[in-house]
């Protein structure tokens, strides 16, 4: 039998009577990269917090490095060599890089007095360990996300870390930064450190990890070698459902395009963009972060009015100078950042759905309660939004369900053209699949859909055509049936 570095056995945790963890087991070997996967709310974050001492378990045993840990506090976890890199990195934006690096060790040593010279020495050693170049006196808040993450990793390495837990470390990183992160992870592995890599992105799991564990609804579903895993199995473990990926085939197209743009330009962002979308079609728009894709989407919804070119809707030229005109022209828009631009998080799910049609649900200036409720119930059912009560705040839902609310809000206005910017960013696999099905169904019913995304499989599976942007210009256009990821990437770069 292999010795394990960490063995968490039959761990249970309840929150106000609700089971968050229902007897899960997680075993990690020394020096391995282990991937912990599962959809939102599956309990993986809860387990991490138990291992790192933020929460206390209700039952179960945790063994680390050969000894059983009875009560874990954040400090004792660190002393034992367990380090967590949280999604927000748990750093202090207002302090210098040096202090961010050194402050934990000062706390562990139970120092009362600060020794700045000593702190600088500690910080210098910490960055040297993974050869990370950074100005130690810079304020941490001024660094990029990837640099902040490196600071968090350096900090984690200082206490003879034996296990580093990374909670969805790639969420906010660009592809290049992910590569750099993986290089560091392999470096750490060589130094004999185990990594618990929490992610629900398939390609990352396959690329970096040797073994995996999947949780679903607080239960252990599967654990084993990543080499024995494939896409389908993994998805099944995560969701408990089998997905059949069938590429989108447009059913019947409207004879005339619903949206046509000619030589569209926005100074400094994109220029000379022409395309048209018929009802029943799904057009994919892809490109790098600075390709102008987001600005193009905003322009089509009137948020960044164009500086040149024509926009025609149903053959009629329109000027989209603000979102109100766009809505009046039956254009719907699902923004990139649904939390800040698409949702009233504290308001109820129902109110979020009804907001865009609130004018139609009133009679003589008063709200028609029955019709209001009817509208809400219809969309909750139609998009199968998982909530016990539409009166709950939108913030109580998972990412996938929140995205459904944003969709419902727009569908309630019955748009002809629906533009979605990154429709499944941060959404788990099951919901992602469902959202794709919904979009395909909408197109099937005659809507013109535009998906803006850098998730190439998403584009290839769901769009009938794809337009590639590079540096604000059209770099290529393909029918998705004959396109491959590589063809698109070549045009993007």
């Amino acid at each position, binding site marked *: 039998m292999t010795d394990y570095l960490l063995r968490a056995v039959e761990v249970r945790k309840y929150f106000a009577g609700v089971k968050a963890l229902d007897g899960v087991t997680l075993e990690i070997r020394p020096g391995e990269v282990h991937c912990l996967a599962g959809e939102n709310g599956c309990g993986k974050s809860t387990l991490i917090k138990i291992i*790192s001492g*933020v929460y206390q378990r209700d039952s179960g045993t945790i063994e680390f490095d050969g000894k059983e840990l009875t009560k874990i506090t*954040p*400090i004792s976890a*660190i002393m034992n060599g367990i380090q*967590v890199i*949280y999604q*927000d*990195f*748990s*750093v*202090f*934006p*207002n*302090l210098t890089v040096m*202090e961010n690096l050194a*402050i*934990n060790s*000062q*706390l*562990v040593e139970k*120092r*009362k*007095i*600060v020794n700045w010279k000593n702190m600088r020495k500690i910080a210098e050693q910490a960055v040297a360990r993974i050869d990370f170049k950074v100005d130690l006196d810079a304020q941490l808040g*001024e660094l*990029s996300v990837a640099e902040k993450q490196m600071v968090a990793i350096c900090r984690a390495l200082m206490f003879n870390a034996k296990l580093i837990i990374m909670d969805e470390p790639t969420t906010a990183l*660009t592809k290049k930064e992910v590569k750099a992160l993986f290089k560091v992870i392999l470096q750490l592995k060589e130094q004999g450190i185990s990594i618990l890599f929490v992610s629900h992105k398939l390609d990352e799991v396959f690329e970096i990890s040797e073994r995996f564990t999947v949780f679903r609804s607080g239960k252990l579903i599967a654990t084993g070698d990543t080499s024995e895993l494939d896409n389908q199995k993994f998805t099944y473990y995560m969701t408990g459902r089998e997905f059949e990926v069938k590429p989108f085939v447009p059913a019947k197209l409207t004879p005339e395009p619903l949206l046509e743009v000619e030589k569209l330009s926005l100074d400094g962002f994109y220029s000379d963009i022409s395309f048209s979308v018929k009802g029943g079609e799904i057009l994919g728009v892809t490109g*790098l*972060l*600075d390709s102008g894709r987001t600005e193009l989407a905003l322009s089509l919804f009137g948020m960044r009015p164009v500086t040149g070119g024509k926009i025609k809707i149903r053959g009629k030229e329109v000027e989209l100078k603000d979102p109100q005109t766009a809505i009046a022209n039956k254009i719907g828009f699902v923004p990139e950042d649904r939390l800040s631009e698409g949702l009233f998080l504290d308001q109820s799910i129902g109110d979020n759905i009804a907001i865009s049609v609130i004018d139609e649900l009133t009679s003589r200036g008063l709200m028609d309660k029955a019709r209001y409720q009817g509208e809400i119930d219809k969309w909750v059912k139609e998009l199968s939004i998982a909530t016990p009560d539409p009166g709950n705040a939108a913030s109580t839902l998972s990412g996938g369900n929140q995205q459904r609310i944003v969709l419902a809000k727009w569908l309630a206005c019955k748009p002809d053209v629906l533009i979605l910017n990154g429709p499944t960013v941060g959404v788990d696999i099951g919901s992602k699949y469902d959202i794709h099905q919904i979009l395909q169904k909408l197109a099937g019913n005659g809507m013109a859909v535009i998906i803006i995304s850098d998730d190439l499989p998403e584009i290839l599976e769901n769009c009938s055509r794809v337009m590639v942007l590079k540096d604000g210009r059209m770099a290529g256009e393909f029918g998705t049936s004959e396109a491959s990821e590589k063809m698109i990437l070549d045009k993007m770069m």
Partner: protein
Amino acid sequence: MQNTIKKLFKRTETYIFLILLALSVLIQVRSGQFYTPNNIVDIMSAMIVPGLFAVGAFLVILSGGIDVSFPALASLTAYATTKMFLDMGYEGNVLLPILAAILIGGILGMINGFFVGYLELPAMIVTLGTSSVFKGFMQGTLESRQLAVIPAGMKSFGTSSLFTATNTQSGLSSRLPAAFLVLVLIVLIAFLILKYTMFGRGIYAIGGNEAAAYNAGFRVKRTKFLLYVFAGVVASIAGMIRVCMMQQCHPTNMLGMEMNIIAGVVLGGTVIGGGRGTLTGCILGTLLIVLVENSMILIGVPVVWKDVFVGLLIVIGTAISAYQVTRSGRSKGNRKQTEEVA
């Protein structure tokens, strides 16, 4: 060298210092009375009580909290202490009354600290509430009224001076109360705490990212609790000094000071959400407010307009620092974009 200057101009303190300089020159030009020994000493003396309050308010804001109860806390402490020592017929020096005030102020600070730190209630609500309670307790239970006489020890501390400065032209002279040393001492202590103790770094850390501070192993609840106790102690010392300097105890005349004090702290570059700010900025900001409050008369602005000027100063000053924050945020965004291109 150039780098240092560049860095200097990124800091709010530099701007506040320049504004202070400009204002003092203006007053000097208009009245010829600013750079006179007795005026400088007057301003130093006027800084004592607001300066002490500001240090306490600054530390609390730095931690991401807020305290609006310190004038009420100081009033209650000062009144209770003075009354108690009067009733005792106390004839000793000022040390014992100050110690008593520190004790009472610490206990009242514990009330704030308990609710904010251990029960994690919003600081604004808690201190608004305790402010009302302290005031009510003083006026109701203690039946406060103006005390025209204070114990002799307190009185002599209030009148004792470090030195006297005389304006040779006008013949006016002003003395610097010994209490000024207390301000210097408290500022020094606060500086040492912030820079050289883990408690002080904890205040910055909690203000920057409370969850991260907890994860890192800071004892967040205890730090907050102790912080409010410290703020209570500093405020009560300020209250006592005020009574000593005025030679009488007027229970309500400190009430309402909180807004200008907090404004001075924020004006000095302390971010109201916590985490960022320096003691230098806190003192300079407070000095600016004190200067405007005291010196408008010297440039011929009627006293009734004082509040308007203080208000304008606050709006303009905080708007400038808010603008700076958004501007630096924007340039950061731009930088990121160019990085992507590269």
